[in-house]
């Protein structure tokens, strides 16, 4: 087993991207993810790569579009307000079926908001994020190791399905330091015969495009894209179950919220309450099946979020509203405490799902 190194989450993302073969990074400074850009600025020139600070988030995502169109692995990163600016580009990337990796180290919003951790871009990330029918693969790390692992996995999935993978982290994940193994599993990149790298006068020209003026054709493109999305929903769901074997109460939480929730679960178990956790790792595709299955034994679901309650809607959909789903949340850069979650668990235990 490879040695572990102590890294910040943001740095782990950057190094993992390089290990995955990414040699082009474009970004614009914004807290709390700027370490990614700083790391890339140091590393890329030494390995023949390209770090370029763009004039805006909009320019950065379009530089990504250009490199992606040439068939190379490419990424950008930002935090919430910057991701809104990238929205246009995310839609065009989806419309042109280009692979890319985009990192959102979330902070509190809306507007300029704050610079402390948040999960309030869940809707934006999982429901499309900009105009038109599309999805991104959304990966939610809960440790520095997962920041690295999911970055590599995100590149693989992006290439496999020709779409954007988004790492949806938060300020805590970006800033915290943990030991991480960089012995990462990188798959070979698929052939990209569609890439715009010059015809060499040997083939008909390739066109990267999201315009389709004939509605019948545009409809067909959308249906085909959603067939691909259905494959992803079938094959690429990732989640962790924690103490779910006998659980009567199920917490749903991702990222930093899941780590706080685990503390509360250990304490509740010590008090004799059967509670467990389902932690979605892919937020899209959402792990619907384990939640639905859990309704057989669980009487109450508790969604723990750093937002005003966004994932809770997917938990309700996944559980088909068969059991009550309650919310434990903080917002604006605040993080729920283990005590706050424990209290909700105790209430659920007392009520036994009868609310």
């Amino acid at each position, binding site marked *: 087993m490879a040695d572990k190194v102590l890294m910040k989450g943001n740095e782990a993302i950057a190094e993992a991207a390089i290990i995955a073969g990414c040699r*082009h990074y474009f970004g614009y400074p914004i807290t709390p993810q700027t370490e990614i850009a700083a790391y890339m600025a140091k590393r890329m020139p030494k390995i023949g790569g390209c770090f370029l600070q763009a004039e805006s988030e*909009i320019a950065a995502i379009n530089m990504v579009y250009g490199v*992606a169109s*040439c068939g*190379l692995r490419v990424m950008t990163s930002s935090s919430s307000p910057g991701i809104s600016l990238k929205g246009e580009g995310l839609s065009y990337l989806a419309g042109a079926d280009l692979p890319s990796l985009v990192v959102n180290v979330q902070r509190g919003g809306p507007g300029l908001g704050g610079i402390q951790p948040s999960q309030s871009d869940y809707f934006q990330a999982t429901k499309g994020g900009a105009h038109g029918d599309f999805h991104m693969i959304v990966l939610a790390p809960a440790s520095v190791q997962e920041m690295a692992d999911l970055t590599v996995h995100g590149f693989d999935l992006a290439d496999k399905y020709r779409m954007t993978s988004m790492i949806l982290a938060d300020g805590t994940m970006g800033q915290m330091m943990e030991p991480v193994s960089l012995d990462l599993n990188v798959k070979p990149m698929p052939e990209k015969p569609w890439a715009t790298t010059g015809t060499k006068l040997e083939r008909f020209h390739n066109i990267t495009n999201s315009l389709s003026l004939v509605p019948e054709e545009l409809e067909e493109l959308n249906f085909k894209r959603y067939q691909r999305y259905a494959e992803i929903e079938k094959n690429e769901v990732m989640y962790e179950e924690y103490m779910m074997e006998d659980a009567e109460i199920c917490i749903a939480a991702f990222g930093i919220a899941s780590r706080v929730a685990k503390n509360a679960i250990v304490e509740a178990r010590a008090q004799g309450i059967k509670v467990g956790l389902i932690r979605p790792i892919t937020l899209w595709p959402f792990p619907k099946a384990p939640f639905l299955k859990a309704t057989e034994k669980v009487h109450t679901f508790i969604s723990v979020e750093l937002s005003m309650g966004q994932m809770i809607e997917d938990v309700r959909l996944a559980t088909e509203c068969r059991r009550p789903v309650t919310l434990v949340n903080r917002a604006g850069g605040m993080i729920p405490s283990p005590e706050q979650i424990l209290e909700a668990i105790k209430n659920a235990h007392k009520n036994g799902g009868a609310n």
Partner: protein
Amino acid sequence: MVVFDKPHALADLPMHYCPGCTHGIIHRLVAECLDELGIEGQTIGIAPVGCSVLAYNYFNCDMIEAAHGRAPAIATGVKRADPDNHIVFTYQGDGDLASIGMAETVHAAARNENITVIFVNNAIYGMTGGQMAPTSLPGQVTQTSPYGRDTNHCGFPIKVCEMLSELDGPEYLERVAVNNVKNVKAAKKAIKKAFENQINKKGFSLIEVVSSCPTNWGMTPQKALEWVEEKMIPYYPLGVYKDRTAGIVKGADK
């Protein structure tokens, strides 16, 4: 002996442009340059949003359709993906380049990004049906300036070559026109030089092509070309605004 033929880099397709539109001429000039320099096979063109949005169909080189105004940023990515082999050009109108995409234009120029920009200035938004453009002349009647462009209300046109010539970055800036044979020949020379600069790794070259839009100007093609001569060129003087290699800065030869 063949004395006039369709350039290899230009697709054998009917174009969608209006009668009298000069996009066809400019497309042809670009394609002739790709042929003559032998670079079609390594060229990637970036089409804009606007009347020339479908330019990706008309050039036989690899093509990318950009979001409105973002072509210089995409071109930056394409160039940096393979700086030694990719020849990259953007083809943009005045709304695309000088309004919604101004930041991308200025910063690509400031970086001396080694790309070629073909900037078609016809002083109007064509595709959406004739609205005021960043380059519409003072007093010019458009759908969104129905009483004439009032500079007290909505400001003055942007002179792109003059503005960019203030930057240290760009290698080459020239304004040309395609309203008569003499000017078309000069335009071809400028466009070719803009590609040669890129081949020789000299950096950012922008050719502004003063152009006509008979349909949205509400003129016959002939009248529109006269309007280019009488109204457009006096406001947008032709000439080299910057040529770093030749030591020319700010339209000294006009």
